[in-house]
């Protein structure tokens, strides 16, 4: 990083984290809030754009990396998690963030989610959950509530939606949080905790699609919010308590729902490398001797 050390590195303002590219999102879309919150978090945590990379899949939400000033990769639909894992494992010094939509993460890409949780690689996954397929113009999503009308469920959905929080807690994710695109301050706090968490952190952001679900979502969600940080009884290290939160119907709890300290993938990998090192105690060229019968 010689070039970077020479460069002057003045503290950045939150707005310095915008790439300058104009978002294609509809006016009022929840994703604007997420973008703004991320800029503030980056500024607060003083993440260097050169040392930070945002990965995403495909969807309205997955356009995010283009609007942030850092390294970024807008990849393909549903594959953001393995791509982010590869990058973090190749360079553990990088700040890695993955982002995407509910369709991206819980329909086409859901197969990667449990494995990402159990591997506990140190990065943050932000799902902008709008209960709909935005980019493809309003089809049913795996998180669309039962009976929801969409362009592909014209008589109301007859399927049970996926509960991303339940899934994450069930799959042994070590940091599980929920926040709301209408509350920037809360998003910033939760995202900061998630990024600072050592291990995999999953954050569900309720981020309304004003075009295909409706802007009244902001109000509906806001009226049901229950802030866990205001609840002195709530203990995020209690898994049973976390499971009670996922079953709530009368209110929507936001904040850190579950949190657990555990060695991350890289810690375990380092131990494994130490154990394997005895096999690599010679020049790679000399390893050829193992093929001598």
């Amino acid at each position, binding site marked *: *990083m010689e070039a970077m050390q020479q460069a002057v590195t003045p503290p950045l303002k939150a707005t310095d984290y915008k790439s300058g590219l104009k978002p294609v999102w509809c006016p009022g879309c929840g994703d604007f809030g997420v973008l703004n919150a991320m800029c503030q978090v980056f500024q607060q945590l003083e993440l260097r754009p050169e040392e930070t990379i945002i990965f995403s899949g495909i969807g309205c939400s997955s356009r995010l990396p*283009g609007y942030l000033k850092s390294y970024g990769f807008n*990849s393909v639909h549903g594959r953001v998690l393995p791509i982010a894992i590869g990058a973090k494992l*190749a360079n553990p010094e990088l700040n890695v963030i993955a982002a995407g939509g509910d369709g991206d993460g819980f329909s086409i890409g859901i197969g990667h989610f449990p494995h990402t949780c159990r591997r506990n690689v140190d990065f943050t996954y932000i799902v902008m959950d709008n209960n709909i397929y935005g980019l493809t113009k309003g089809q049913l999503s795996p998180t669309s509530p039962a009976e929801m009308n969409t362009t592909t469920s014209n008589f109301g959905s007859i399927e049970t939606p996926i509960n991303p929080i339940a899934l994450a807690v069930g799959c042994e994710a070590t940091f599980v949080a929920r926040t709301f695109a209408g509350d920037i301050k809360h998003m910033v706090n939760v995202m900061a905790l998630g990024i600072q968490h050592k291990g995999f952190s999953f954050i569900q952001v309720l981020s309304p699609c004003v075009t295909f679900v409706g802007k009244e979502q902001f109000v509906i969600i806001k009226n049901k919010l229950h802030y866990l940080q205001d609840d002195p009884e709530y203990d995020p290290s209690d898994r049973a308590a976390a499971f009670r939160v996922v079953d709530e119907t009368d209110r929507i709890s936001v904040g850190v729902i579950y949190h657990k300290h555990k060695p991350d993938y890289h810690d375990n990998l380092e131990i494994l490398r130490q154990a394997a090192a005895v096999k690599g105690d010679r020049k790679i060229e000399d390893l050829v001797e193992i093929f*001598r*019968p």
Partner: protein
Amino acid sequence: MEGDELNLGLVGSGGDGVMIAGESIVSAAAREGLKCLMLKSFGPQIRGGESSCKIRISSKKVSAAPDTLDVLLAFNWNDYKRFGSELELKPEGVVVEEGDSESPEPERPIIGPQPATIYKLPLTRLAKETAGTPLARNMVALGAVSELFGLPDKEMKHSIKKMFSHKSAQIIEGNLKAYQSGKDYVLANFSKPEKLQLRIEKNLEKRLVMTGNDACAYAALLAGCRFFAGYPITPSSEIMEWLSVYMPAYGGTMIQTEDEIAALGMVLGASLAGAKAMTATSGPGMSLMTELLGLASIAEIPCVVVNAQRGGPSTGIPTKSEQSDLMQAVFGGHGDSPRVVIAPADVGDCFPVMREAFFISEKYQIPVIVLSDAFIAQCKASLHKPDLSKIRPWERARPHGIPVEDYKRFEYTPTGVSWMAIPGKDPYIYRAAGIEHDEKGNPTSEFAEHEKMNEKRYRKLKFIAEDACFMRYYGPKEAKVGIVTWGSCKGPVREAVEILNTQGLPVRAIVPQVLFPLNTDKMRAFFAGLEHLLVVELSYSKQFLNLLKTQLDLPAGTAHYGRSGAKPFAVSEIIEQIRKIAG
């Protein structure tokens, strides 16, 4: 056989120790400096089912598996039935089996020529007497085979010791005694078949033993690969198994993923972050990787994907070789997505091919598919120590000396290659995308930008065809009969060419290894002066022939010989086809 070589076949059930016996022979041959090749074959049962192996040993060249056998060692005739057509004897061939003068004649379901001689040994009795267990039957048989056909005794003993080195001294002793009892029994009861004595040149340099999968894995490590993600699949799993030991030993990462999509996904993420990264798979996994391969193509991310081909489509024949993933490798996926396809032609060839794969992918920022096959992947070969000094990591070109604002990740350049910054290492931030983009990486849906970007990405191929062309040539330049083939078909074709030339029919062959982009100048130069051309491949739908046609005009009257895989070409089969076209 004329003394130059010995072709052995072994067949039995799980507990018979067929593979241990086979591997002992290969190890001994390699230590003696002999050329040797072993091909394994298994029945459908996961463990304990029928298994067989074919071994070819020679002081001279060995390039193909044996067509037919000099010696068949049958531990169990029932098991033979499954492999019959793979284990045919030569007219002079002999059989070694369990039994003695008292025991009734077993039913021998032998296909093809019947054995000239049958050597019966009380394998089980001798094993019990010497090693105290019938499990040592294979060692008794090894002793017998070694004595009968002149295998190198000292090295055989060494191999056996090494094979059981993780066991107690008592077990090693027992196995050696069993081996000796087989030898002694032969000495006391039979005279050696004079025509079937392996002639061994003295003082040959000791050789190594490895499979194509071993070679691919090791060569990747040498080429600087430090990230491997993969999902188990026959016949390529051993690459990841090998790397699971040696990748972390050298500070790298080997991770077993939830599926092949995740495998290539992780590889792309790791590569974007600066690591030399690869995955290995077979047909079904390759199909799953297709979408991400296109991503590597448009986002210009270096990566190496080894596909050890098996019989297809779908699950097909997992354990057997075929060359039917060629079109998928070159053209698989949606959109115009350039990639490079290279094929090793034998086990040793995996070294230069893997070196080339990493070199091309890093230099040109393009996905490279290494099309191995089950034959190369699984075949155990004795080889001369490869020249490892030639396998050096190649470092990709990174931006430097320009203002950060001026950096264009996808800049149009004369070669199509643009500087690739590494996150966390370079200040030149950029955004990559699977969405079509301009030079800066910003999304676009304009025709003009798309056309220019396609042109940029395809422009690389022109340079690769020259930079990384390697071809193998066999036979005299002036021959008027030519053959084009690829991959492991090189073995039988090369041997057929050599035999025909000694028989007075001049034939030459070319084996292109960079199959896409093909160096068409070199191909045309080879065609010059030919009167007959034959394209040879293991694919029912003529994939290689069709691929050649997409890249150049073949001479009028070009003939084709191809068939399904699951059985490698016999040398005699190729000779027959060449004679047919050469009149």
